[in-house]
């Protein structure tokens, strides 16, 4: 099995351990993953090859308060190709204080099933 060609070598990004995963195809043509130290590694590698997902973070200016920014991220990962379309949506945001940590600033952004949330508190 291990003499089959490696389709991709990738580093698991789910935690700082950073397992080196190798993905091969077995006799039946199914993808096989090796090198994972925990059971999150296999689904990660398969998703990473077939359909990579990422969270994203940025910050946007708060309306009416000079030089105050609120940092934001997504409540969960999205397909990697959605990063720039979502960033364009976030760039239009000018939220008003007060803002609480975890507050939803854009619900279900671009129909992706995740929200853009504030990651810090901004007092008025």
């Amino acid at each position: 099995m291990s003499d089959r060609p490696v389709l991709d070598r990738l580093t698991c990004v789910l935690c700082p351990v950073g397992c080196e995963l190798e993905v091969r195809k077995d006799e039946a043509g199914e993808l096989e993953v090796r090198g994972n130290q925990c059971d999150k590694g296999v689904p990660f590698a398969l998703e990473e090859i077939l359909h990579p997902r990422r969270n994203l973070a940025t910050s946007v200016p708060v309306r009416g308060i000079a030089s105050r920014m609120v940092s934001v991220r997504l409540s969960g990962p999205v397909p990697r190709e959605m990063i720039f379309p979502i960033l364009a949506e976030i760039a239009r945001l000018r939220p008003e204080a007060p803002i609480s940590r975890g507050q939803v600033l854009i619900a279900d952004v671009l129909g992706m099933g995740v929200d853009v949330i504030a990651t810090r508190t901004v007092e008025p």
Partner: protein
Amino acid sequence: MIDPVETHDVVVIGGGPAGLAAALGARRAGAGKVLLVERDRALGGILNQCVHDGFGLFLYKETISGPEYAERLIEDVVREPIKVETGAMVLDLTPDRILRVNARSGYKLIRAGAVVLAMGCRERTREMIEIPGTRPAGVFTAGSAQNMVNLQNLHIGNEAVILGSGDIGLIMARRLTFEGIVVKGVFEILPWVSGLERNVRQCLMDFGIPLELNSTIVEIRGRDRVESVVVARVERVVGPGNDDGLAPVPGTETVIPCDTLLLSVGLIPENELSKRAGVALSPSTGGAVVDQALMTSVPGIFSCGNVLHIHDVADWASFEGSAAGESAARYAAGERAARGTVRITAGPNVKYALPQLLTAGTAGTEWSFRTTCPMRNAQVVVEGKTTGKVYVRKKFNRLLPSELQKIKVRQAVEEDVEVSCHE
């Protein structure tokens, strides 16, 4: 001489993850009066500008962003009767733990039962790595660029080159890409990446940003603003005048037009106060020499987080802070452990091991270490220098200099030991 105007059981200097956790640790271990001093206007330290996610996996069992991580720790601190002074600068610290503080309310003297150093680190600059060329605008350390982009909404340039593959540099490569800035490449002088693997994948490979190892910037060009940088390959050269053995190869220079250069070329523990207090520093960590309780060479002064040694994961800084705070509370309550006499030294392929000192006979401790180069199928060995006894032998699939590692030493250690690593 003015008499001390305030007395606290434990004073923590620095309100980043290590300092916040230290203040909480001190309370948990029974310290009555705890003071946390932070020179910035707000608590949280560098976490406030680290808007990316990936923090907190060990402490909170989920991945969150830096600001969220900071706010959670701050909320815990605020719930406790911990006195917090922000916008306050500790000007001096004496070996008998008198602090001179320039606080918002004015200058004051503070007497501390125990002190926790948690001042963090600062970035290496262009001057420190001596890049030749002109002195135009547009050269930033990666962390200051992060502050300008994430906290000040400043547009720092249009086309950037990043020197050094530290984590902040990698994170900023992605961050600049998000801002529409073209990142033309990341150049690293060593044959390996200094940042975490996951950041290479998520921050560079995802966006097709080139990474070139064994290369460096040999000249910065431009009059008012950076116009280009000259990149060259480096090679190991043995001979006089090359202390680190790496030198640019003539004829390999390439000119890369850009208006912005980010430097991610290392972090330096900020130990000016520690030196004033007479704390002995280690040349291999740049931080204090500590024992298993994280106490420095000056009794009653403890150290944790990036001021002790550079961490790649905030959680480790928090855990270390927590432990230092607990030790400080016990010291302030009058507990005195025997001083560390057993020396823990770094052997082949190990950059440093921490703590550097151990009270003879101590069992069940956890040590941190870092390797000098990437290693595969490696064995880490802790060996007695007198008896040759092997205290620990542990296998690692892979060890990287970018990743701080931990090793448990269950047995009691009575003699000087060496930590080494072999493939």
